């Protein structure tokens, strides 16, 4: 099999003959031309891998020929070596700035040309391999992007449908994953006894793994809720589920709540999650006091033996509940100061009446804390308004 094709362009027949002889003997396929024009015609018939061209030729000089080859997207990747009798450094540099890849000064030894052609073909092979690998990478990347887009759409489908309604309350969410797909999840379920079960969780890490686990967290929560019980038993059940099905470094922070509209009480468990805000009378709009629904508890999925604690708070008609994941308050300024819970409370002190408008206002203001680089982590915000 021929090693590759070389187009030799020179107006002097003896030079063409000598180069042809040596290159053919070394196994290359050789094409020849007497000047640039002939060479372009030759290239119309057969595409060489490498061109060796003289500079000074009638009809079309090597300069012009090189410019044409390198100026045409279809041929610019063909390796171009210039043969030049001009021995000044200036003209050599001139040739390379035309776009030629290399040069051989005249007079030359045929062996020298052959050695250069051999090394050039090694380069060409390498480039071909790199291009092939690059094509594969691009195709792979595209496939991954398509799958990610699909997974992201699927994940959006795991979130409650909006506008959300639960006995005597309505809610909305803002879900902003950093990588198109994320580890945040929430769920709100009406219970047969007229209460409402709520869960918001943030799985450690980002991307596909976190997203998979977030789906698992949601399923686990919904299973626990179906079994009955209260936030405390849900927490134990979910912790067990997560300990059994995740790897060493994977766990979730979560807040689990059960709102009883009859008694106006909210029972909840904090599992390492940021404490939600209760805005007293917040659905009326205007200035309102917020309460932090504090509590301490381990993250889910750490250890099956860890204890959880249930807390209890008042939640009256007309109150607003703000659930969120830490990405919302970890907006960091250049001086390293963060928005934090205190900043969110300042924002929540005065919000618009509707839950949609309130959610937009919270996101806009949190983002404004550092406009140039607002959210570095997945952000989820849920606003639940209890009708007055």
């Amino acid at each position, binding site marked *: 099999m021929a090693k590759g094709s070389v187009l030799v362009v020179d107006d002097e027949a003896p030079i063409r003959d000598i180069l042809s002889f040596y290159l053919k003997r070394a196994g290359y396929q050789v094409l020849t031309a007497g000047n640039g024009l002939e060479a372009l015609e030759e290239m119309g018939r057969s595409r060489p891998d490498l061109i060796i061209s003289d500079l000074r030729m009638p009809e079309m000089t090597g300069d012009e020929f090189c410019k044409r080859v390198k100026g045409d997207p279809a041929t610019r990747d063909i390796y171009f070596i210039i043969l030049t009798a001009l021995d000044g450094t200036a003209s050599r540099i001139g040739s390379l700035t035309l776009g030629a890849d290399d040069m051989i000064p005249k007079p030359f030894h045929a062996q020298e040309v052959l050695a250069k052609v051999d090394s050039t073909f090694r380069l060409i092979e390498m480039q071909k391999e790199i291009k092939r690998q690059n094509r594969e990478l691009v195709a792979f990347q595209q496939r991954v992007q398509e799958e990610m887009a699909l997974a992201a759409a699927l994940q959006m489908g795991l979130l409650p449908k909006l506008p959300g309604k639960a006995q005597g309350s309505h809610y909305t969410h803002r879900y902003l994953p950093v990588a198109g797909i994320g580890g945040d999840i929430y769920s709100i379920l009406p219970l047969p006894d007229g209460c409402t079960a709520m869960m918001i969780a943030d799985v450690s890490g980002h991307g596909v793994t976190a997203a998979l686990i977030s789906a698992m967290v949601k399923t686990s929560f919904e299973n626990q809720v179906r079994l009955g019980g209260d936030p405390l038993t849900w927490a134990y059940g979910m912790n067990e589920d997560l300990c059994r099905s995740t790897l060493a470094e994977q766990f979730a922070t979560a807040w689990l709540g059960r709102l009883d509209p009859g008694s106006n009480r909210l029972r909840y468990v904090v599992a390492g999650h940021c404490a939600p805000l209760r805005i007293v009378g917040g659905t009326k709009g205007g200035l309102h006091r917020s309460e932090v629904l504090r509590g301490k508890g381990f*993250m889910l999925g750490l250890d099956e033996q860890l204890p959880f604690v249930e807390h209890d708070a008042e939640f009256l008609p007309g109150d607003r509940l703000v659930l969120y994941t830490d990405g919302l308050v970890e907006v960091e300024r250049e001086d390293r100061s963060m928005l934090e819970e205190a900043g969110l409370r300042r924002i929540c002190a005065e919000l618009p009446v509707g839950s949609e408008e309130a959610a937009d206002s919270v996101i806009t203001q949190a983002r404004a804390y550092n406009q140039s680089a607002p959210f570095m982590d997945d952000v989820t915000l849920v606003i639940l308004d209890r009708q007055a």
Partner: protein
Amino acid sequence: MLNIQTRQEGTASVVSIQGKVNFEVTAQLRDVIRETVATAQPKLLAINLEGVSFIDSSGLGLLVAARNSVDKSGGKLHLCCLPATVKKTFDQTNLTNYFSIFATEQDALRGA
């Protein structure tokens, strides 16, 4: 980029961390801890968090996994010198009660 230094104090290994511990650097930290545990097989692994400005959930996960792996090999993991911001994160996640935490490195080493 995280700055991590390790040294040996008798049968204890000390890992000092400086910087922001988040998702981007957990792989780097995981390798160091894994290698320290594997090569030195310390009775006590002390992790000094004095220079840590921020730790996110991936970082916490890594520390929990480190504690579990040290436990399994019969050793102990002590944390020390938690800056206020890190302490806050530990409090919020109740990890203050999950780890043995010491005010100074000396205390952490003595607590073996």
